[in-house]
């Protein structure tokens, strides 16, 4: 056990929907024993008690979108032994990173009557763009069993590790007939990291990339295939630019094919 005493756990939120924090509270069967193993020192959504840092483990939800948050994440890093990002916003910039391809001043005018009241950065960026991150848990939302696994690994002093194969493997295990091969549906599964349990194809639709791109997928081959199946380039670029669109291959492939149009 790498911690001398019951480790202090903190949960911090940046720009996000709170869904990944909620995934922790959704550990209904494990929550009370988890609270026995770690001391919840800072978790605004769940408790009023706030214990000062430093913290042994900080779980960080959300992306960085304001100058204030740019400073706050540095303070969180300084206060944290392990900093673990949870979810697509914190690891990839989230759906709000769609602004990164647009004019944020125009976005502000579109949503707010008095844009001068709004202070925001040009881009929505993942935590790793600002401070060193010890481990990333992907997903929009995260899979609660994955975060439980990572906390267990930390408590037992094991190396932090989650599987990194594609969603396709999970479809095979689940016995789901391939929606791309059998039905010609555009599916990001071949490019997307495991974690959700291959839900979408089991619900008669293509994967839309919640868990982010694999480290080195063959995106050219995938793009060629979906276009061969009849998908328009603009639609393909849009599919690549979803909840993890500002990350890795999704970002580079969407930029490449947008320019190609």
């Amino acid at each position, binding site marked *: 056990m790498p911690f001398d005493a019951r480790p202090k756990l903190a949960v911090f939120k940046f720009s996000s*929907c709170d869904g990944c924090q909620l995934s922790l509270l959704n550990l209904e069967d494990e929550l009370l024993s988890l609270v026995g193993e770690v001391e919840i020192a800072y978790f605004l959504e769940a408790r009023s008690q706030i214990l000062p840092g430093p913290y042994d483990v900080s779980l960080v939800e959300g992306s960085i979108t304001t100058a204030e948050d740019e400073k706050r994440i540095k303070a969180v890093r300084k206060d944290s032994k392990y900093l673990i990002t949870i979810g697509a916003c914190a690891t990839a910039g989230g759906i709000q990173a769609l602004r990164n391809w647009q004019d944020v001043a125009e976005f502000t005018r579109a949503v707010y009557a008095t844009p001068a009241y709004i202070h925001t950065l040009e881009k*929505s960026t993942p935590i790793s763009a600002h401070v060193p991150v010890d481990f990333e848990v992907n997903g929009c939302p995260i899979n609660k069993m994955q975060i439980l696994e990572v906390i267990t690994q930390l408590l037992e002093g094991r190396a932090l590790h989650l599987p990194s194969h594609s969603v396709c493997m999970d479809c095979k295990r689940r016995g789901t007939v391939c929606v791309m091969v059998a039905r010609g549906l555009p599916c990001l599964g071949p490019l997307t990291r495991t974690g959700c349990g291959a839900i979408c194809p089991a619900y008669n639709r293509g994967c839309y990339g919640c868990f982010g791109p694999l480290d080195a997928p063959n995106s050219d081959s995938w793009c060629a295939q979906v276009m061969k199946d009849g998908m328009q380039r603009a639609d393909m670029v849009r599919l690549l630019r979803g909840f993890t669109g500002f990350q890795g291959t999704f970002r580079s492939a969407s930029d490449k094919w947008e320019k190609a149009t």
Partner: protein
Amino acid sequence: MASENTNREKTVKVDYLTRVEGEGGVYVRSEGGELREVKINIFEPPRFFEAFLRGRYFQEVPDITARICGICPVAYQMSAVHALEAALEVIPPPEIRALRRLLYCGEWIESHALHIYMLNAPDFLGYESVVAMAADHPQEVEQALRLKKIGNRLLAILGGRSVHPVSVCVGGFYKAPHRKELESLAADLRWGIEASKETLAFVTSLSFPSYTPDYEFVSVSHPNEYPMNERRIVSSKGVDIEPEEFERVYLEEHIEYSTALHSSRADSGASYFVGPLARINLNLDKLMPQALEAARTCGVSWPCRNPYMGIVARAIELIHACEEALAIIEAYREPASSRVEFKVHAGQGCAATEAPRGLLYHRYRIDDRGLVEFSRIVPPTAQNYHRMEDDLKAILPGVLNQSEAEIAQVCEKLIRTYDPCISCSTHFVKLRLERG
């Protein structure tokens, strides 16, 4: 967190509201013992959903708007599909309507169980959190977790997962559930009805501050159903309108200290109140039989204008949601098709549905390729901010002599009764008090 200076001016700041979804604070300023200013500051960063939805295909909208809120994604999916179906002139058949209500029941159960026991009850019992409460009330906490789990399982069966489910589409569902999967929940839901009645007995035993302002309650209303998905919007002050008239009757304004928009009555500028208390006050007779019986015999007279009794309204809705979910499951036959076919064309449509925390309005305009040209989303919490500030203005003069910690607690307790969702409304809470 607070300061007192020589010019008899005093400020109190609640820097971070806790046990709410998302982040915001409260700023209170008094002078010579008189309340001068109350602001609920929302500093949840803006995420610009209404801007980046432009150019997205209409069928992506329910997936994207779900991400506005991890606690009530189904509400965002429901308002989105109903508004887009209005734009595309799609009328889903009764079996799809029933499945949508079932999905909504799952979210109400999960969200209400979370709010009643884990976010709100600690306020009444004097605990800082459910973690602290669990030591003295293990039975209640275990009951809460089991109820919450039932709601989440229902969501996962219908939608693949409980947070951001994947099955909802314009026209229906990508996949309808198998009867056997749903039947596996029947015993749990029967237990849930009884556990919800115990929850109601537990919350009605709490002591509530006496405060009953003249609220305008606003909710969705349907001739034969407790309000969830459809359709008209009614208020306790005589409003009875189609959703198309919502933006004419209720206005959203942008306030300097907030990244959330605030809503008011367009004619008078007055605040109004959405949420479970509004729903029950306006639709009591539409509750399912056991929920109605419980509401009539729980010792509360309806309509109820005490905001702190929102927790009672949630418990009654918890009974209702378990009861209605069970009824839908018992009557369920797998539909021949899980979604209706339709032609894509340009159009504009709007809809209001009932999120766990209140009325949620969406409006979209799409072009002839089905791409979004315009969207407007009015979340329940944004509609309640103005009312929360009015409540604090009414309550705080009576407590200004108390310590800052006590004033902060009064603010937080009031605000939490609304079950605010700050992430949602930003497009929320921290107390800052200045007093002199």
